């Protein structure tokens, strides 16, 4: 039962790579957006807020199709990126990472935003009176104190990215070795006669990955908490 075939390994490795890249690229962006939403008032803030949460409420196939229209080879942004920077998303693993990044972004941002909002502004003011410019206040006070939420956001985003299916398969299809992640592989295996055993193996693998992510986040959160409030 647990002879995982090379094709299955490929899908597992690809899923891990896609989700890791999506999370790592989305994290700095997510922290910036979370800080803006938590600490700044600007024109159009509610629109930005709504746009970020849109992938959470839209059917994933709609998000995937919109990504195809925008970042496909003939898409507005996709054509420009391909011609000028040589970056292609369509039917590549990078496209899968983009789809996963967009889909997981709301889940990644939310805990970050909540934890930044929870940082006592009085501490930020105190840092200011001690001579810290706003960006240094952020790096030395706000970010370290919000770290548990930042890590929680990363783990949630990663877990969502690992499981993403609808937008990814719509945008970059289901190409073994290039865009076939665990979810897409399970989907294909279920539709293949005698694919049940393999599908079950992949199911077990995805449960293991999800649990590992949860355990890791628990461990990080505990460590971060001890570091912040530990005595």
């Amino acid at each position: 039962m647990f002879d995982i075939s090379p094709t299955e390994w490929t899908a597992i490795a690809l899923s891990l790579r896609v989700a890791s890249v999506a999370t790592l690229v989305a994290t700095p962006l997510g922290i910036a957006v979370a800080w803006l939403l938590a600490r700044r008032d600007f024109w159009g803030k509610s629109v930005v807020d709504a746009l970020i949460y849109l992938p959470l409420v839209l059917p994933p196939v709609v998000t995937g199709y919109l990504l195809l229209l925008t970042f496909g080879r003939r898409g507005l942004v996709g054509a420009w990126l391909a011609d000028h920077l040589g970056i292609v998303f369509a039917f590549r693993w990078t496209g899968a990472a983009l789809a996963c990044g967009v889909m997981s972004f709301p889940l990644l941002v939310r805990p970050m935003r909540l934890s930044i909002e929870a940082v006592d502004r009085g501490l930020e003011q105190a840092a200011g009176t001690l001579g810290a410019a706003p960006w240094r206040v952020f790096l030395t006070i706000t970010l370290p104190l919000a770290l548990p939420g930042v890590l929680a956001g990363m783990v949630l985003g990663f877990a969502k990215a690992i499981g993403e299916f609808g937008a990814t398969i719509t945008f970059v299809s289901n190409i073994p070795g290039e865009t076939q992640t665990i979810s897409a592989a399970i989907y294909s295996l279920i539709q293949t006669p005698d694919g049940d055993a393999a599908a079950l193996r992949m199911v077990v693998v995805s449960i293991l990955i999800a649990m590992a992510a949860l355990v890791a986040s628990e461990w990080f959160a505990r460590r971060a908490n001890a570091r912040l409030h530990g005595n």
Partner: protein
Amino acid sequence: MLRVDVSKQLGEFAIEASFASEGRVTGLFGASGSGKTSLVSMIAGLLRPDRGTIAIDGEILDDTAANVHVPSHRRRIGYVFQDARLFPHLDVRRNLDYGRRMNGLADDPAQRARVTDLLDIARLLDRRPGRLSGGERQRVALGRALLARPRLLLLDEPLGSLDEARKEEILPYLVRLRDEAGVPMVYVCHDPGEMRQLATHIVMLKRGHVTAFGGAEVLPAAVSPA
């Protein structure tokens, strides 16, 4: 020399305050809700006056007519809050060192030793704020503000959250600070006894307005706060 001439509307509450003081310790005295903290926040640059000027030693920090507002991190004005506001993720040593690092000042072990001795906090250096008593926290906050080398120190009811015994514990340190640290201070409180012990000049505030300015004689005779 501290010159303040500001007005600020905060909801229903209006502050119209003007005074100049050259004292070593300028006491801002008034009941709670008289605008003391708002006034101190304006001096610190945390709150922007609607109109007016704030200057220290001839340097303009706020001048609404000329659209000047020096942000708090460039004022070199220390602020000791009632609730200390120590950084919980840093130990006492790194809390004390924070202002020096942010201002790009050279490490000065002699100065650090002077301040930690003055405030009796040398044995607390490796602790986190979570493991300090209220009085210890306030002393560390004083040290942290001093070590940023401010040209003015604002003390906003630093004893306000402490019980009587703790107040008695901290007051001597504040007197030493006044006599030995060489930094002019603005001391906010509503306790005439505390004011008498510390302030050299007193600004009386009532509902956002300065009602008297002078020495200890302007304080009410009663011991209990108005």
